[in-house]
């Protein structure tokens, strides 16, 4: 039996109602680690990338890493890999909480969902036992009701990962929620799950993850905890204020996307800052499995508001998506919208991006009155009621406009004849960093294998957040391709091993390698770790190319390349993408159209 990995996967044929354990492909595990890398390897092998993402031909893979379920700090992650209904590219969405470790304790590294169930079902995995259970009574229920019901029907200690109504309705940016508020958020993995008629996967496991060298692994874990507790980023900023600590910074610089990226500063930013959240609505912070950071925020609306609720959030990205980018500066409204997204099962970034582009389309006169008859309020920046109403409509596909919203911001803008107003890449909305203030983020958005995203090479690390003497000029294009490539490989590594990206602020790749070696008993090196990251990146690229994506999809909207921002430190900046992109392709060993060369694939041993 291997260490770290359980060595087993569960293949689930939903069409036939059959679940079959299989041995994990260990040569692939050594080449692709786990999680994102290994899940993509299975997807690439088993699925035709040109198939419709919402067809039974798509596969939805829930994949843990070898570190998931160990006591490595933040070793609680799992990923959902499939073809994205939103982008048509590969999707890999990462979540924390406790579901991933529970799957390992039940004895599986991975679940592969295939086909389509004739009726709504949920899966109940209780150690070795696997049951398909009727979910017709759960269809139409929100994520919280669904989770509570399934737990009552299975085991009080079961962990549940599943979809809300948005996933059932095939909203293209529906997410998967586990432990009530942890989200595999991006790229519409919830719609892919919904298309298979599966509401949730409940898991209970009582086993343990075997570690190869307990003593050495334990020493490394202990020292890694020390690193996390000594790093101001992890122990002060993230633990103290969560990701919302970034709001004030971004606004000061002038890179806080506001009103669909038309401005980089928001006059009501103080209302929704990390400091304000800490002073007003924060009840406590919270951590995922084995997490010593605790960046999650447990919050409750202020009580003097029409928007009442409690739950988790908001993250920085959510404050931007449902707040500043829609011109909304009422904190209670942002919280309420965040809770609603978690209950409906929709990605807060793409939900916000979709509403923001709708607001701009409306203000520019491109959406006629009759299309908005069901909205009941003005679709304009700053109107929190419009945001919340749009969330309802996009979840249930209510009316013509709700149906358009559920298709995502790109298709919505295209429908009204102005796709150029959509702020994203590969049909996926940007995250909360205006790339005109960090040119590497622009290249990162354009080249991200899953479309507009900040987690596929977070260039902010080297452009703004690194120690001053190591920092790259955020406004320069020079040197960004090489820096980004390294970050993209690092991200692929941590996403595959099963640890949280936030741990990497304190636990460097060199230490991740040591943890991996002592956990699995497999020898590797920092150089090989980087090569594994490169292999994963190129495999994702191959999937996308076979799905029909080309160089034209490595793009930014004209607002980023032609319209300068004003305000803050970002005066007169645009992104000169083409030069960076050519350099990026050259450094990657790709041809001018963005196809990996035969030499590159051979060097990386990709078959």
């Amino acid at each position, binding site marked *: 039996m291997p260490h770290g990995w359980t060595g087993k996967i569960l293949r689930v044929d939903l069409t036939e109602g059959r679940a079959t354990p299989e041995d994990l492909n260990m040569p692939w595990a050594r080449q692709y680690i786990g999680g994102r890398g290994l899940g993509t390897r299975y997807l690439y092998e088993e699925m035709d990338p040109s198939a419709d993402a919402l067809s039974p031909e798509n596969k939805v893979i829930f994949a843990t890493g070898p570190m998931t379920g160990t006591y490595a700090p933040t070793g609680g992650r799992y990923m959902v890999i499939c073809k994205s209904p939103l982008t048509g590219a590969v999707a890999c969405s990462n979540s924390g909480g406790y579901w991933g470790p529970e799957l390992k304790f039940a004895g599986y590294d991975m679940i592969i969902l295939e086909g389509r169930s004739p009726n709504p079902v949920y899966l109940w995995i209780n150690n070795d036992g696997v049951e398909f259970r009727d979910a017709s009574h759960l269809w139409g229920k929100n994520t919280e009701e669904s989770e509570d019901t399934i737990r009552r029907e299975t085991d009080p200690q079961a962990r549940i990962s599943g979809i809300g109504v948005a996933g059932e309705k095939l909203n293209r940016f529906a997410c998967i929620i586990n432990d009530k508020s942890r989200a595999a958020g991006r790229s519409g993995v919830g719609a892919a799950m919904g298309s298979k008629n599966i509401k949730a996967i409940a898991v209970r496991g009582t086993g343990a993850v075997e570690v190869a060298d307990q003593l050495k692994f334990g020493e490394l874990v202990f020292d890694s905890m020390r690193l996390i507790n000594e790093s101001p980023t992890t122990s002060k900023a993230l633990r103290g204020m969560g990701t919302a600590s970034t709001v004030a910074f971004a606004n000061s610089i002038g890179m806080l996307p506001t009103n669909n990226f038309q401005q980089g500063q928001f006059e009501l930013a103080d209302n929704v800052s990390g400091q304000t959240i800490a002073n007003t609505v924060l009840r406590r912070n919270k951590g995922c499995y084995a997490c010593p950071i605790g960046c999650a925020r447990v919050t409750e609306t202020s009580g003097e508001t029409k928007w009442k609720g409690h739950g988790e959030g908001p993250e920085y990205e959510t404050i931007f998506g449902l707040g500043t980018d829609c011109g909304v500066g009422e904190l209670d409204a942002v919280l309420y919208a965040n809770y609603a997204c978690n209950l409906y099962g929709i990605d807060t970034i793409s939900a916000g991006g979709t509403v923001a582009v709708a607001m701009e389309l409306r203000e520019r006169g491109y959406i006629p009155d009759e299309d908005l008859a069901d909205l009941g309020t003005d679709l304009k920046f700053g109107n929190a009621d419009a945001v919340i109403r749009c969330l309802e409509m996009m979840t249930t596909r209510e009316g013509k406009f709700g149906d358009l919203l559920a298709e995502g911001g790109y298709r919505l803008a295209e429908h009204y004849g102005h796709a150029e107003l959509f702020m994203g890449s590969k049909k996926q909305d940007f995250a909360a960093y205006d790339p005109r203030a960090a040119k590497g983020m622009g290249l990162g958005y354009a080249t991200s294998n899953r479309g507009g995203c900040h987690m596929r090479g977070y260039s902010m690390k080297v452009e703004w957040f690194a*120690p001053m003497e190591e920092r790259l000029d955020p406004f320069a294009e020079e040197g960004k391709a090489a820096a980004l490539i390294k970050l993209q490989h690092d991200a692929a590594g941590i996403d595959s091993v099963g640890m949280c990206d936030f741990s990497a602020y304190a636990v460097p790749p060199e230490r991740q390698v040591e943890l991996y070696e002592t956990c699995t008993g497999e020898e590797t090196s920092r150089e090989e770790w980087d090569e594994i990251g490169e292999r994963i990146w190129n495999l994702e690229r191959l999937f996308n190319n076979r799905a029909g994506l080309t160089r034209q999809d490595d793009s930014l909207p004209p607002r980023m390349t032609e319209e300068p921002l004003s305000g803050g430190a970002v005066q007169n900046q645009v992104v000169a993408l083409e030069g960076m992109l050519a350099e990026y392709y050259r450094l990657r060993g790709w041809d001018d159209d963005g196809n990996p060369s035969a030499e590159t694939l051979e060097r990386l041993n990709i078959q």
Partner: protein
Amino acid sequence: MKLNVELQIYLKEYSPNGAAKFDYELADGSSVMTLVDALGVPDELANIVIVEGESTDHAHKLKDGDHVILIPPLAGG
């Protein structure tokens, strides 16, 4: 000279009056480093410096009336 200082997130711990935004007197010709030292902020925690809306460094010479923002190492996501 009189500066208008803003200490973001946990750097507020180094505020002389507990407020994140405050006015602060410093000798003419002082640099950002002088301010950082005077407030007792560890150098490495004054990681991002913005003066009058422009990103700058610790050697930057300040002038009367400047709005100075000090920001510690961050992570978004």
